[in-house]
């Protein structure tokens, strides 16, 4: 037996130790309450977010691209639906067998089979889809539908292609769309507050981006905003139900300043020859016609082209991909003469009554070098007006010889030479306006008087794109002021160029225009053959670009045996006079005569715009 004393000791030990443990547990209890409070109340929002992210998965929904219209509301580029055979790679284990059994009743071209096999692995990671065959015929659809139960992993659904009814007309002006690098689509989606992931595609070839031309320049407007389908998912990633749907926003439809009819006429008139046609609406500076020739089909490029066909296009010596309108560099040749004449007037070197004798060549006083005109024997005594009408070289050789080269270059830059004159052309080239410092830096030679003389007839180092030449024509027609060019019908806040000179009076401009009208209307005009092709008056200046300089007609006969060494033909024109609406530039490579080859093209295109 234990005595009372012991009992008290034992009880005291027990009580104190039990309380000690309970204090310890009480501490744990408080710690636990604090912990739960932290999780549930203090950090609630971050855990709530984590729980929502856990249980939802969003699938992007591709928006349709905007439709591109011409100035009269004709659709130029559209989204064309077709019924495509689509498979879901994530549910298919053996793609070879699968394609074999599909091929038994639907013909699948070999290139498509290769493409599907190539893409199969990457597409099977998510619930991605893969297009096996596009644009099924009604018969193929029927063949599939009766066997549908055998292919639960495949479906026929509507998908879009980016396509134009006029696939070769606007290839360079509008450009084409194509697949996009992951990096770029990530950037685009980031700006729309989204992340790259599983996507419901509207287009058969997935994410698209404007690669060239208008599709590229206005990609941000045309592309639209991705929508989202939000699904509830479980821990295994199974889709349970759609909980939300944010509709994609279709890209903006855009009305361009282009004109379908004149573009068609220009395309036909060019007959596939190398060159370009650009028409500008003078009042607004908007581009009405924008053709680079030869062309290619944007439909093929935009919707997947076979490797061999693509190679053919790339290796074509006529370079159909090359945008001659905004990137081709051509010497303006004689078309520069009105600008040189204006220089002479502005600086009081000449006036309209000033006459020189043109023996058919110009002798450079410094080294007796001879610069020839096109007409043997020359034009005799000639003033500015006739020098433009007959395209006297000697007149402008001597005018350029008299010029201050720095002033002359400043003067020419006012007409857009050496500058980007277009607000929204794709990758426009600035051409080349040479200067003494440019020559020293690039060719390591000083500027010779002869260089100035060559500049006087638009030969030598000076080069310009057809876009620049069209701008130049419009600038002349508008008497020295013009807004920059653009492909939009209503471009806001455009820059403009203006001729600051005080010495060129309105009378001077009118006489200049009259001289240019004489190029066609005068019996001595270099383009007199165009006179009867139209019912109104056109101011024009033709030009012929010598690719190889020759001293005599006999020499040139030798040269022209090589088609690629023949002269380029150029025409810059505007009309109808006296109140011009449109200015045009036509360049045809190796066509030899500006007046008689480029001229008719220019007149046909202007007719399509003016004779309504």
């Amino acid at each position: 037996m234990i005595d009372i004393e012991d009992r008290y000791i034992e009880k005291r030990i027990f009580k104190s130790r039990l309380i000690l443990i309970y204090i310890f547990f009480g501490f744990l209890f408080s710690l636990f309450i604090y912990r739960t409070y932290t999780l549930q109340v203090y950090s609630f929002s971050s855990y709530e977010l984590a729980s929502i992210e856990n249980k939802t998965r969003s699938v992007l929904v591709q928006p349709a691209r905007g439709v591109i219209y011409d100035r009269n509301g004709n659709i130029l580029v559209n989204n064309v639906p077709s019924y495509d055979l689509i498979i879901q790679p994530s549910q298919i284990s053996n793609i070879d067998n699968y394609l074999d059994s599909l091929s038994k009743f639907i013909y699948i071209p070999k290139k498509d089979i290769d493409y599907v096999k190539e893409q199969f692995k990457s597409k099977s990671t998510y619930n991605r889809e893969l297009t096996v065959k596009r644009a099924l015929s009604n018969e193929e659809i029927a063949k599939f539908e009766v066997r549908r139960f055998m292919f639960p992993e495949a479906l026929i659904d509507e998908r879009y292609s980016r396509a134009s009814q006029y696939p070769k007309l606007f290839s360079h002006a509008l450009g084409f769309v194509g697949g996009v690098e992951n990096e770029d689509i990530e950037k685009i989606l980031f700006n729309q507050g989204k992340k790259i992931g599983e996507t419901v595609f509207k287009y058969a070839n997935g994410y698209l981006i404007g690669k060239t031309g208008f599709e590229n320049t206005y990609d941000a407007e045309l592309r639209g905003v991705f929508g989202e389908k939000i699904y509830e998912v479980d821990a295994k990633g199974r889709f349970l139900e759609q909980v939300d749907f944010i509709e994609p926003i279709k890209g903006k439809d855009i009305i361009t300043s282009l004109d379908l009819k004149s573009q068609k006429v220009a395309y036909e008139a060019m007959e596939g020859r190398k060159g370009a046609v650009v028409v500008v609406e003078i009042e607004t500076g908007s581009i009405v016609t924008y053709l680079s020739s030869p062309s290619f089909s944007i439909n093929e490029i935009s919707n997947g082209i076979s490797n061999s066909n693509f190679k053919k296009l790339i290796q074509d010596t006529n370079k159909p991909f090359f945008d001659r309108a905004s990137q081709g560099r051509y010497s303006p040749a004689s078309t520069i003469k009105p600008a040189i004449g204006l220089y002479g007037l502005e600086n009081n070197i000449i006036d309209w009554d000033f006459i020189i004798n043109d023996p058919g060549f110009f002798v450079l006083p410094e080294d007796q070098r001879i610069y020839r005109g096109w007409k043997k024997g020359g034009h005799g005594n000639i003033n500015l007006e006739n020098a433009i009408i007959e395209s006297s070289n000697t007149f402008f050789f001597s005018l350029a010889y008299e010029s201050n080269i720095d002033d002359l270059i400043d003067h020419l830059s006012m007409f857009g030479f050496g500058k980007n004159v277009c607000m929204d052309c794709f990758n426009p080239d600035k051409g080349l306006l040479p200067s003494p410092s440019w020559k020293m830096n690039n060719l390591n030679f000083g500027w010779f008087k002869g260089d100035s003389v060559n500049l006087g007839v638009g030969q030598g180092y000076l080069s310009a794109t057809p876009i620049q030449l069209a701008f130049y024509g419009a600038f002349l027609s508008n008497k020295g002021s013009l807004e920059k060019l653009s492909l939009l019908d209503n471009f806001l806040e455009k820059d403009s160029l203006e001729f600051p000179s005080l010495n060129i009076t309105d009378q001077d401009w009118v006489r200049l225009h009259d001289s240019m009208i004489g190029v066609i209307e005068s019996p001595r005009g270099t383009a007199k053959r165009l006179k009867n092709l139209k019912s109104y008056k056109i101011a024009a200046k033709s030009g012929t670009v010598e690719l190889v300089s020759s001293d005599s007609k006999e020499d040139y006969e030798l040269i022209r045996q090589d088609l690629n060494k023949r002269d380029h033909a150029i025409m810059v024109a505007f009309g109808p006079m006296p109140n011009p609406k449109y200015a045009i530039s036509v360049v045809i490579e190796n066509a030899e005569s500006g007046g008689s080859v480029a001229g008719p093209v220019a007149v046909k295109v202007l007719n399509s715009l003016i004779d309504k």
Partner: protein
Amino acid sequence: MKQASFKRFSIYFDQHLFIAITLLSVMGLFFLFSASQGNMTTVIKQAVFVVFGLCLMFALSQPDPDIYKILSLSFLIASLALVVITIIFAKEINGAKRWLDLGVFTLQPSELVKIALPIYLASYLFEKPIPIDIKNTFKSLIIIGTCFLLIASQPDLGTSLVVSMAGVYILFFAGLSWKFIGSSFLIFLISLPFLWNNFVQPFQQQRIQTFLDPSADPFGSGWNITQSKIAIGSGGISGKGYTDGSQSHLDFLPETETDFIFAVIAEEFGFIGVCVLLTLYLFILLRCIYLAFNARDRFCRLSIGGLSLIFASTLFINLGMVTGLIPVVGMPLPFISKGGSSLLSFYIAFGIIISMASHKKLMQR
């Protein structure tokens, strides 16, 4: 005094504990319905256990505690024998032999040792001088060690640690000297690297590493605890609503019916629900202190203290694990987690506690 009013046929009962435990058990069924995605079979099975458990608890509170004192050695030997039988005969499940298939019910004998050991130690120390001397300390430690090794060899480290803890609580109440406690703790700390390298299984090492940095491997072993914290945190103050917990219902949360059922409750009922639940547990624990303080003799005092602390330890290990305070160890939430043996063991423990609290002697010892 109830036995005074019912001289011939007395009922021994503690309405505070009984009501609190019944309430917890019923709430548990309600929670389990949601945690099991509305699986009625699971809920009905659990309900059978609850009813059986409550009856068992009531029945076990009727005999005089002296009977438990007398039978305590036999209980311990019998339950250890079952552990041995399990090791020898039971089928291996997940690399461990812990369960004995009794046809209608799968028994985990180690859960019985958890109760038998502290009661035996309490009866062993009943006649011994207090505070406990060195000789008895070592004798007791040998008994505890035997139980530990047997259960640990199943292998079942979690239960064997809880069982040892139950024994050590009794020794602690019996006045184990602070010097002894201090030096044992020191030895434990020194041998920790040795134990880590030789006795801690790789998966257990990984659990502890995961605990220290769950973000290191969020989709691997850190998954459970990360998802559990998201479930609890996203419950907020008032919860997402009954059966509306997305973490548990979309399978993000593991073991929703057993170890992680607290996360389900916290997600669906929020901080308010957690507080209500914890109040019930706190009430039970405080009632146990009161009963222990007023126990009729040393055997009852030690037993009530030991058994209630096993309950408290299990509770806190579960809560700590689910909220990421301690590493993941398989420990149920008492009276709520789905389960047979461990659930029944708590009904048994509280049956014995009530018996000890309600049988009084005129002359207290």
